């Protein structure tokens, strides 16, 4: 009897996990789709559309234009590459896929999306407040990704997982920044640049906090069982 209750409890927990997992994949796919729509605004490469229309004080700079389009075109791939990396199923059954996609993720961030993000952060809207946030974000992004890659090569899988959670938390700031902005504007109706300065920080620090909490909870759980 008691065993049955425990069993059904365990069933419920796994059901909840299942639902959470599905919700996660549905929302990440949905927001990736939105990001894709945003990316498509810049194909073909033009400087008189969307965000770039109000960046015409820097779109004259060749290195800014190169950085911008590099960032826009590679970041969407980085985002999508990351989606399957956290699936235990993929890692168990298709390790090669995990490795290939992971290498793509790392190379794109370290050589393209990260450095270009740093350049864009330097010219970012919202003054030094937002610029600091964006530059810090780009540097930490590359740093976490690099550490995650190194630890995978050296076979330290727990460290690999932790660094990569941090890395992907920052990758997801592309989405969370825009979500925060939407929330802040709808609930507080702030002036656009004031809101922008806030989300420049909130967009990635919140994600990183969640990642750290997850990492902390695993470490705690593991230590308890040992």
């Amino acid at each position, binding site marked *: 009897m008691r065993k049955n209750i425990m069993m059904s409890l365990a069933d419920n927990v796994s059901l909840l996990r299942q639902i959470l997992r599905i919700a996660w994949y549905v929302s990440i796919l*949905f927001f990736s*789709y939105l*990001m894709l729509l945003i990316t498509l605004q810049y194909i073909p490469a033009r400087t008189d559309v969307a965000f770039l229309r109000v960046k*015409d004080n820097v779109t004259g700079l060749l290195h800014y234009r190169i950085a911008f389009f590099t960032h826009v075109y590679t970041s969407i791939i980085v985002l999508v590459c990351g989606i399957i990396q956290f699936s235990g199923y993929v890692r168990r059954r298709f390790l090669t896929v995990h490795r290939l996609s992971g290498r793509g993720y790392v190379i794109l961030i370290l050589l393209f999306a990260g450095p270009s993000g740093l350049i864009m952060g330097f010219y970012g*809207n919202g003054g030094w407040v937002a610029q600091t946030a964006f530059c810090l974000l780009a540097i930490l992004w590359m740093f976490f990704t690099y550490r995650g890659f190194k630890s995978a090569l050296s076979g330290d899988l727990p460290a690999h997982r932790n660094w990569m959670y941090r890395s992907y938390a920052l990758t997801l700031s592309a989405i969370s920044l825009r979500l925060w*902005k*939407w929330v802040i504007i*709808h609930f507080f109706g702030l002036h*656009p640049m004031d809101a922008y300065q806030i989300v420049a920080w909130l967009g990635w620090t919140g994600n990183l906090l969640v990642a750290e909490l997850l990492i902390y909870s695993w470490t705690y759980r593991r230590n308890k069982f040992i």
Partner: protein
Amino acid sequence: MKLLRYLPLMLLAACFQACGDGMIKNKQTDSVENTVQQVVQPVERKVNHVLQVEYTEDLIGDWVGMFEPDTAYMKADEEGGSLSHKITISIDQINGTEVKGHSVVAGNYRPFTGTVEDEEKKFVFTVAEPGDDQFDGKFDFTIPKGDSLLIGGWKSYKEIKIPARNYKLNKRFFKYDPQRRLEDFPYVNWKKSKQQEQDYDGEKSMEEAFYSTTEDVRKYNASTQELKREKVANMKKADIYILRNSIFARHGFSFKNKDLMTYFDMQEWYMPVSINIEKNLTALEKKNISLLMKYEKHAEEYYDVFGR
């Protein structure tokens, strides 16, 4: 059967498609009021700076006031205020009993011709618009001697929503003054505002969320100071919109857009005298307009949506 299995997935995809488009693109195309390009040959006139009318030559000039619907045509459910527009009736030439002039109201510049009778205590005018515009009609007004008033009525030729109007205008000289400041009441576009019901101590009140001006609109004057990019970047769209249109208003531009008309009509100094003011804009104003336009478009499309 196999198809059935994919159906929910397809529905979901379709849903995202619609949803995603909505979240990213939120275009409003009607709010940019562009100056209408229309060639109008102004009639040369002798400027008379007398405000109080005694003689025939004192009649020449601009007369400003509200062009109000005749009460007989006002429906109970309609607010009279939104149907009243500021009008400028200009008397340009008088030759004996012959009169030439024009009126500017609601973005319409219409010439008229007719006659004037010099009676003992007043001048009596009967003038008519050409009739090739849907909203043309006939003006009958009097200008009493010893005063600065023009009082009368107007009847349309065709059957339109408001076929009769009344007016009581004052003589005033139009002069472009870049120093003109907006008075302290907000511009609110109720259609574009997203109204939120808010609870204050149990009492419900409606608060419009977005499309209204803030104090920014009075802090800056786009006709006298060069606006800084960082300042404009942090402005809300209604402020940007009104700052830009107030440049046109100072030049006496007659708006077609109803909300702008209502807003600027309430500015004491505002006089609609022209529908083509592009050539009168100063270099500073042109510079500000192009900056404001850029951010106005941006604010409209991206201020309250996900992404850019």
